[in-house]
């Protein structure tokens, strides 16, 4: 690696390496939104791994911050898997989407997360909080 020649250059490098710790720092934040993907046997069989990848790549593409994507266990609605649960911060109600394929996953990030508009016809149910 070559030497860093100015404070600006140091700051640019920081931007570049911010991914190093972002998952951890967001994980500690009280204001983050958590997206939980059902990854039990039923979820995985229904394609939850692709759902998760689609969510992650869209988050990266749109450079969305303060969001954690986690795997969660069986939510009990195996017929509706892959299930995706959006858990907003500060005890706001949870929203669940059913049968989330790669397309819908992308839309969830673009509409629900970025714009704040729910995709009504894909919502499975709501309620409960973190």
């Amino acid at each position, binding site marked *: *690696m070559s*030497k*860093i*020649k*100015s*404070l600006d*250059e*140091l*700051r640019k*490098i*920081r931007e570049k*390496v*911010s*991914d*190093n*710790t*972002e*998952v*951890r*720092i*967001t*994980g*500690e934040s009280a204001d*983050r939104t*958590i997206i*939980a*993907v*059902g*990854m*039990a*046997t039923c979820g*995985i069989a229904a394609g939850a791994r692709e759902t*998760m990848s689609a969510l*992650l*790549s869209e988050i*990266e593409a749109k450079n969305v911050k303060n969001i*954690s*994507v*986690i*795997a*969660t*266990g069986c939510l009990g609605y195996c017929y509706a898997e892959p299930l995706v649960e959006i858990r907003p911060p500060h005890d706001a109600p949870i929203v669940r989407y059913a049968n989330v394929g790669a397309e819908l996953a992308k839309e969830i990030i673009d509409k629900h997360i970025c714009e704040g508009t729910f995709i009504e016809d894909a919502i499975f149910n709501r309620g409960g909080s973190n």
Partner: protein
Amino acid sequence: MANFRMHILICGGTGCMSSHSPEVHKNFIDILGKKGLSKEIQVLKTGCFGFCEQGPIVKIYPDNIFYVGVTGQDVEEIINEHVIKGRPVQRLLYVDPMKKSPQEEHKDIAFYQSQVRIALKNCGLIDPENIDDYISVRGYEALGECITSKTPEEIIKIIKDSGLRGRGGAGFPTGLKWEFAQKSASDKKYVICNADEGDPGAFMDRSILEGDPHAVLEAMAICGYAIGADEGVIYIRAEYPLAVKRLQVAIAQAEELGLLGDSILGTGFNFKITLSLGAGAFVCGEETALLNSVEGGRGEPRVRPPFPAVKGLYQKPTNINNVETYANITQIILNGPEWFNSIGTETSKGTKVFALAGKINNVGLVEVPMGTSIRDIIYKIGGGIRGGKKFKAIQTGGPSGGCIPAELMDLKIDYETLNAAGSMMGSGGMIVMDEDDCMVNIAKFYLEFTLEESCGKCTPCRIGTTRIYEILERITKGQGKMEDLDALKELGEVIRDASLCSLGQTAPNPVLSTIDYFYDEYLAHIQDKKCPAKACTDLLEYVVIDEKCIGCTLCARNCPVSCISGAVKKPHHIDQSKCIKCGVCESKCPVKAIIKQ
């Protein structure tokens, strides 16, 4: 690079490493590799999480799940259940003894709830051997800002305004110390980091260096710029091999990126840092003895004044600060002095890291705001006294400090309150004692330590600590006289007033504070020839209670000196003239018929 969706952090501090965290680390890497998950999931070693009692610790992000006591065999289950299927492994979660339920997130654990992390901010969050991790949390930005847009005077003013005081012992205002060194005109100056950490039971500085070495390097460079020095030395004991290695790695990485060395960030400011390994003598933590040791001389203190800020290393102006003092600097520069001085008490700002040890449930490293009460540290954070015993006293300040009794539990800790209570902040060791600890014996333990560690240069310390130790030994053997108490006080005062360095000046503290607060215990030893805590073996006897003894002969068969006699099914008897008071009989007796008295 695709982002890692999950980060698995394994504690790589000395404590967890010695309880096999490297095996846990290796198993995670191997098994994730076999399952083809290495590209999605990052596995890394961090610094100490502080919860050493529960190690090895594994923390998983972004779920923020905190596992305790993880072994190599648990890794497969964590991967199959948690990593792949999203089901945290319940049996490895920490169970709060008060709430009795497993706690998933570390912020729900009482141990962490009252803590505020400034010096330990990055410990357990970043990989200390990866400079990119440090840069990603604004590493080296404080240095960059200082050398590109601040004058040395401005920096010193920030440190002064923050109210930061030395964390190595005496609590001297750091900004003022820097100012003295800055004002000493010289062609050459030095910055020294004191990482000797000689107090028994203390491991704050080690954990900072192991978990966040760059924070200390960066602060030393800022200090160098502020006082006009181009060379820094870290004096660290050779018994800290992991901290030494992490520092070496960090220095090499910083030099490679031009963040240390010549013309840092293209500004023309030069600063290099080297390590100087100490052999572990307690006195070498004293700043002037340290200077002699770095120069290759004997570790004996110099007469002050001149202070190091005027004549220090190789007689050049030198600023010496403790590791933890430096660990606060970058945060003060980045967040401003007002932020820092809004935390703490009137006279003592910011936080203090304490190494909690002794008879406490949660042994470990804690960082709390100045002004936190002893009660909160012991009960809220420390989880109370081990085995439900009674809290008796807390020892702070190491061999230079004193014992604070349970009655003063609501004392809000800062430099002044601890001094007023006859103890001191010291570097942050905190040893908790319960009803089974004899305070005379504790005082004797510390005096034995200072006696051995006294360098011998000045008479009051060399001879004085020896005489005090001899008197304490007599008292714990039941041969003490009432006049001894006066002699201890008188000796203590002379040693305090006449010793050359603080090693001697503070050596009597453990004795004087225990005589003050636990006078009755001294009296019991001297007048009744009894040790109320039943810790001084010369003052106790093991006896058989005839009515309880069932004559099973277990005690007699296990006694190493065969001093127990008695017929089968008949009460036994201990021959006191032969008994060595090892306590084996008491622990073997199935009906608790043998007692200490």
